[in-house]
């Protein structure tokens, strides 16, 4: 029986990095303030003392350089885990992500693969300055050659991070910072993986299927519990990976209920909810009892924090969306 620790999401990320670095000398972390400072969210706390400056590297302040150097390292067989301090600052590295991270395997017909995991805290709700709250997972999900993983629990954070680091292909690992310290979970001390591309059913229910991921999993579950008191029985599916999506889990949950609501904090147009709706249309049209609802952020630039509570989906908005789907 493996020992466990009671960890938050960010502590589980840190523990995942620690166990993978201990298991494999090729794993190294690089980014801004990840060394002595332990990361601005403490995701790399203590790693510098444990593994030294060659494997926990404070870099110059340059996102393209961080991603681009990690590409070069990974091409030579290391397993770099670059951190971008906030996902809102990934754009200077965007060319490296889409032109190189995503394409090296294809371009070289497999001679070079890139076993690298690009970590970044993402999403809103922490009263942060401009550019610190966006959810742009759809950009990366749209890019062939990448995988995009978003954990919502401490247990998954450690296991999915380990799976990402061990994956032979590049992974964008987005960490919902709203829930970095929101709750704790029992997390095994030993290394383990949670498979990429598999959704988790967080609540069983027969009336309507709710699909979500990341920080929105909690308000979605809250809405589900609240409506259970009114006799509406929701299934809640936490996708955990947004590329590749777990189509089977989506179809199975939908066929069970014939109704669905997708919840994400990213803007509506071109978001993952649209893709999930399309999957339902393609695979389970004849089960459909109601239009697929989307409860999402709005198609506006993410507001400064005085207004962010109006922007982010809340349990109340999600409940409303569920009622519309059920009462159609």
């Amino acid at each position, binding site marked *: 029986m493996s020992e466990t620790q009671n960890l938050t999401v960010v502590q589980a990320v840190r523990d995942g990095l620690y166990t993978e670095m201990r298991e494999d000398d090729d794993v190294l972390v690089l980014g801004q303030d990840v060394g002595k400072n332990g990361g601005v969210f403490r995701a790399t706390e203590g790693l510098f003392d444990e593994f030294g400056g060659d494997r926990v590297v404070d*870099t110059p302040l340059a996102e393209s*350089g961080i991603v681009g150097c990690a590409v070069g390292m990974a*091409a030579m067989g290391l397993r770099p885990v670059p951190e971008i301090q906030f996902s809102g600052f990934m754009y200077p590295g965007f060319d*490296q992500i889409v032109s*190189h991270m995503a394409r090296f*395997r*294809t371009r070289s017909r497999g001679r070079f693969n890139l076993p690298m995991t690009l970590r970044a805290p993402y999403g809103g709700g922490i009263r942060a300055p401009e550019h610190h709250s966006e959810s742009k997972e759809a950009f990366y999900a749209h890019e062939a*050659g990448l995988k995009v993983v978003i954990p919502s629990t401490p247990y998954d954070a450690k296991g999915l991070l380990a799976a990402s680091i061990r*994956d032979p292909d590049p992974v964008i690992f987005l960490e919902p910072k709203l829930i970095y310290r929101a709750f704790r979970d029992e997390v095994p001390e030993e290394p383990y993986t949670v498979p990429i591309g598999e959704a988790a059913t967080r609540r069983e229910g027969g009336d309507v299927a709710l699909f979500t991921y990341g920080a929105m999993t909690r308000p979605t579950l809250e809405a589900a519990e609240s409506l259970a008191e009114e006799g509406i029985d929701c299934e809640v599916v936490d996708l955990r990976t947004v590329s590749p999506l777990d189509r089977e889990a989506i179809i199975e949950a939908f066929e069970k209920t014939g109704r669905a609501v997708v919840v994400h904090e990213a803007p509506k147009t071109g978001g993952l909810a649209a893709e999930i709706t399309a999957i339902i249309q393609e695979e389970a049209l004849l089960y459909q009892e109601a239009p697929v609802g989307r409860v999402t952020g709005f198609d506006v630039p993410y507001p400064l924090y005085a207004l962010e509570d109006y922007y982010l989906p809340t349990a109340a908005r999600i409940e409303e969306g569920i009622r519309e789907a059920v009462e159609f």
Partner: protein
Amino acid sequence: MYEEVASSVSVFDRAYDDPVRVLDEDGEVVGDVPDLDDEELVGIYRHMRLARHFDARAVSLQRQGRMGTYPPLSGQEGAQVGSATALAEDDWIVPSYREHGAALVRGLPLKQTLLYWMGHEAGNATPKDVNVFPVAVPIASQVPHATGASWASELRGTDEVFLCYFGDGATSEGDFHEGVNFAGVFDTPTVFFCNNNQWAISVPRERQTRSATLAQKAEAYGIDGVQVDGMDPLAVYSVTEAAVEKARDPETDRPRPTLIEAVQYRFGAHTTADDPTVYRDNDEVERWKRKDPIPRLEAYLRSEGVLDDERVAEIETEVETRVAEAIEAAESEARPKPEEMFEHAYAELPPELERQYEEFAAFRETHGDAAFLEE
């Protein structure tokens, strides 16, 4: 031995606008001739002739519709061959998209270069024993890769050095700055080799920067910078060799990375898709053609008695045969199998991608290739 090290290090102490030279435009010795034996000298000559002839045939293939857009290298053979020759067996090159000459020195089969420009991704799959990175098209984006890859070599304690090529235009890009800056900070075994061919498509070197030289940019990164006559293959060899040795030596008291500015000229177009007469004078081209690296080295080797008419004729025949064989091999290569698009996107096909492939394969099975291909 010690004297040699001392003299190679001194290469980095000269003024940025004082290019290292070995041969003048007529092949007369004006500097220190590198310590190469006759066969090595002929090797440089042979590779330059091969690159030049390959280039001429490639442009012609494009004109005849037998190949897609192609970036010619004519005029730049001295820089490419001279630098790549200075590498040890285990060293690497990290090219942009014009370094076919450097790649052939490193052992990349000509057929692969042709295939790449004929639209076959397999052309970019450098063989396992050829230490050449795949072609990088977005300008300067390969610079941080070279830094990261050489950093990996440093972390693992191998003594591989990485030679990264890019053009004058690339020095204006952020990735040039970030890649070279990281190399300076982490003291990686990297040689940054700028093929300053004067033109970034139609934009002249002066429009890229107010800096008097590109070599001096090294100063800001705290690394060595040196200018070399990029159309003098022996000067390029000497400078690159000194930079490579310094990069390889963790005990060096100088910074390990170097920025080399190889001043040169592309005789032809940026790619076969543009017409250089629109943006530059023929007089300028003719002036630079007098510096052509091939006749220069040939004149020197003839004067040294290393080359004669017979040997030159042999090399010409050999070069023509090799290129002709490569073209024949590339043109007789079957169209790549469509499933390759899917196969190499990930180590394992994700289920949705498998579904897309099956749908595609079923459609192709029913309708045949006529549904996809013209004629």
